[in-house]
């Protein structure tokens, strides 16, 4: 997972001197996830996967990533848009309702 940033704790400024001098901050600093946006989640049937990586390529969130012999999803940031299931020619990915 080192290829992508992960959530870090942000210390809210307590004093005026804690604020940055200019409107700039550390690149790739994430403080929140997007998981709550999802109403459906992708599920992979690994046996059907042909490793064409079209799901990985077409994911606008970059939450599909390659693992040995399959792909996996970063559910902290997947918004459940369903593009991965749509572009999968082998129909190895299905979208199932997210239940809480």
């Amino acid at each position, binding site marked *: 997972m080192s290829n992508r*940033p992960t959530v870090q704790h942000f210390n809210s400024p307590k004093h005026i001197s804690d604020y940055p001098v200019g409107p700039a901050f550390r690149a*790739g600093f994430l403080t929140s996830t997007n998981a709550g946006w999802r109403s459906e989640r992708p599920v992979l049937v690994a046996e059907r996967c042909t490793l*064409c990586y079209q799901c990985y390529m077409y994911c*606008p*969130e*970059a939450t599909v990533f390659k693992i040995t012999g399959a792909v996996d999803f970063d559910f902290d940031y997947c918004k459940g848009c369903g593009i991965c299931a*749509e572009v999968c020619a082998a129909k190895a990915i299905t979208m199932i309702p997210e239940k809480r």
Partner: protein
Amino acid sequence: MNTTKITARSITDREFFYGHKACAGCGGSLAVRHILKVLGERTFTAIPAGCMSAVGFIYPQLCFTGNAIISTFPGTASMLSGIAAGAKALKLNNFHVVGIAGDGGTADIGIQALSGAIDRRDKVIYICYDNEAYMNTGIQKSGLTPFGAKTTTTPAGENIRGSVTHKKNMFEIVAAHGIDYAATASVGYLQDFINKIQKASQVEGTSYIHVYAPCPTGWGVASNTTVNIAKEVVDCGLWYLAEYECDEFTLNRNPKTFTSVEKYLRSQGRFKHLQAHDIEHIEEMRDRKWERMRRLWRSV
């Protein structure tokens, strides 16, 4: 200079645009993701007001893992020129300068700065992700909104049905400058887009890529249809994949027959109100454009 073809297998696993707050299924964010993956870590990115700056820089959540900055709305290209000049003064080597602006930021508000950068032949890459309206501010018509599309400033009524103007021909406007490299692409044909980003990165001079990027929120389509729509628009002939270099236009994809324009339009909420003769008019305009392109442009 790396000339090996970048494919699904060989593309870097590193992500330079992550955790952003774009709508689910956003075509623009897919374009940005691949632009930065192809250009790599040593890239300076300038993004004007628009969806991609609104979803990527929400302090303290900063989704660009490389060097990125928000430019003024009209000044994307002039900021690119400034960054390139600054990098030259610092004697930096092996880097890219890229600007990623929306259709409004390119065809309307940023067009003079872009024209200036091309005129100076600055070594910068300018990419326009075209979602055919000002989506960030609530779907207002831009110069790249197509005929008949419903936006909040071109509502569909009984007498006027959506946008009455046609899409500005941005690709040929840019090419008319005699730019070093210009191309059109679609996020539906990702390999073609990636090849063009790679090509643009190797040009000694200014390059421009116009990438078609569907917006589920603004277009009234489901979030999972983004890629299909981006393919369909090319297949039905309402968008085209082309390149311009050395004073010559090349059509990268020249379909023998087009798929149904009506099916493409009817699948989107923004075109639902169109009448049969509006669709005929759109087909007529498409045929006129393709007749000219096929006659004058080289095709592969």
